[in-house]
């Protein structure tokens, strides 16, 4: 069984897509830099040429618009934003244009574009290099949103996104780049819209996104030593999201915690909590808990970061809180 890192899996997915489909090209900032994309695009321009791996001017709006326009004209572009924050300069082509296009023209013209955006929290980078904005884009009809948490999914979800036919926002997490896992050599797709159960458990379901999957698995190990058996579900797709897998799990555990390292208000966790709260009201023993970032911008100072960002310890204490209450 071959093992690859998350970042190497990402690079391999790009290389295989470029090699197998002449409609695929990549455009964005930092693609020819040895470090900008964290190794995920290393030397691809040497292999596939600078006409198909295009390091762009500092024009997020225009490069994203170019990718969308090329998609409308039959290509399968990937537009790269080295920080999700920078992508906000390109909201018009993503939200007004790509997401609406199929509907506005009754499905006659579609925008099969992949917008790849990177989250990179911590490191004293502050408020404009650390935002996790998946919920803003989850809100928009016509746009799919995926967040791979493993090396296997980093590759399989990118391939699925390029082949999907709809605009897909693909969000990868810099802090997962070094994580390793099984990654087959052949091209494969991970179906968009399906979650994965990463750890089986009886007592509580933890639904997690992106880096919080790893953190929740670590938390589950701690909690298992305390006699609390956690089931951990990797959401993988933010939109559409896999209601059935969560409902099936909650039907057994009857408790739900949602961990999403993004702002609290109107977040991914809020959406899942509202839906499962309505659909599984009679099954739940306790109120659903959300583990999220406070509604505050990210600080820079390393003295403040630990009090802002969330991790395994926050999951552990939330689940403990749940079990300290009176059991029904």
């Amino acid at each position, binding site marked *: 069984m071959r093992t690859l890192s998350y970042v190497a899996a990402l690079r391999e997915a790009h290389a295989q897509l470029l090699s197998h489909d002449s409609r695929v090209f990549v455009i964005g900032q930092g693609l020819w830099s040895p470090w900008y994309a964290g190794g995920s695009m290393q030397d691809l321009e040497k292999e596939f040429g600078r006409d198909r791996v295009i390091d762009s001017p500092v024009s997020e709006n225009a490069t994203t618009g*170019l990718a*969308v*326009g090329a998609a409308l*004209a039959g290509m399968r572009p990937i537009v790269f934003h080295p920080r999700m924050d920078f992508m906000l300069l390109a909201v018009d082509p993503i939200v*007004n*244009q790509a997401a609406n296009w199929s509907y506005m023209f009754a499905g006659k013209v579609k925008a099969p574009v992949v917008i790849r955006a990177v989250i990179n929290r911590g490191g004293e980078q502050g408020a404009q290099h650390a935002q996790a904005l998946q919920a803003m884009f989850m809100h928009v009809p016509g746009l799919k949103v995926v967040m791979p948490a493993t090396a296997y999914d980093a590759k399989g979800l990118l391939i699925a996104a390029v082949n999907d036919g709809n605009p897909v926002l693909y969000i990868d997490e810099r802090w997962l780049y070094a994580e390793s896992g099984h990654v087959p050599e052949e091209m494969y797709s991970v179906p968009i819209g399906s979650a994965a159960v990463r750890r089986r458990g009886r007592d509580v379901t933890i639904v997690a996104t992106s880096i919080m999957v790893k953190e929740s698995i670590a938390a589950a190990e701690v909690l298992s030593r305390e006699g609390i058996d956690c089931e951990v579900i990797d959401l993988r797709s933010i939109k559409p999201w896999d209601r059935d897998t969560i409902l099936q799990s909650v039907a057994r555990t009857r408790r739900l915690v949602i961990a999403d390292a993004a702002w609290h208000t109107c977040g991914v966790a809020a959406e899942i909590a509202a839906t499962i709260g309505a659909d599984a009201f009679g099954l739940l023993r306790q109120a659903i808990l959300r583990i999220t970032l406070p509604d505050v911008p990210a600080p820079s100072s390393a003295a403040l970061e630990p009090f802002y960002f969330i991790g395994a310890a926050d999951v552990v204490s939330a689940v403990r809180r749940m079990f300290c209450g009176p059991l029904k």
Partner: protein
Amino acid sequence: MQHGDPPISLLRQLYRTMVLIRRFEEAVADHVTAGEIKTPCHLYIGQEAVATGVCSTLDREDYVWGGHRSHGHYIAKGGDIRALMAEIFCRATGCSEGRGGSMHICAPEVGILGTVPLVAATIPLAAGAALASKIRNDRRVSVSFFGDGATEEGHFHETLNIAGLYRLPMLFVCENNFYSSHLHLSERRVCDNIDSAGQLHGVPSVRVDGNDVLAVRDAAMGAVDRARNGMGPTLIECRTFRWRGHVGPSWDMDVGIKRKDDLKQWIDRDPIRLLREVLLARGESPEEVDAVETECGDLIEDSVRFAKNSPEPDPGQVLQHVF
């Protein structure tokens, strides 16, 4: 007008297209006034020479992008008139099946992948189609039509730079009609110098009389030739005027005396009459020239009948076309 000696058949064809657009828009205006069309309509009356001149230099496969005022681009590129009128009536048989209305129209079979009303939004999309053509090496050209207001958006300047840098096969066609909604150009820009925007980005730029269809066509022919031969984009500023209001059929007297005086001068330079004079000077009889009126009138009458007889979109399908 002095443009050498274009063949008479070409002149007739240009004339027919301009008349077809004019009469189409007048029919739309009448039905808006009558309350039968409710979608916001931004009429192209007065600007017909721009779409007609530029699109006369394009092939069927070439791409055309527009904005909120794009009925003329659609017709000049050869889109189906019935499907356009039906869309403006928001019927199921419309080019966007009633999802679009006047401001979101498409005719992918003739290279119109969609026009949308957000000002300047299709400029980078047009560049994207040009980039697709460049990567595929299929020699298609992509034309972006936009108004003077769009030159105030970042989309325009970012895209000029990238298109110049990558030598994309595209045309930036600015239809400078001097008004963005109610604001005159002088209230929005320090200088009347849209054509100079290209120079900053290494994009050759030219200013032409947008009411002279042959001047527009000459400029576009040169630009299309450059684009097809790998020499990159061109910016063409076409100076023209819309006769009606920003939106709807009114003559827009509400924006003041200044515009009223402007309007009179521009109506005196009606692009259709200017070409009519060329045709007559070339020996066509008034009867021959005016014969096109009957043909265009019939086509438009047919399209209105088709639209009115078409069903409304099925409410059962309101959720379709999104995954």
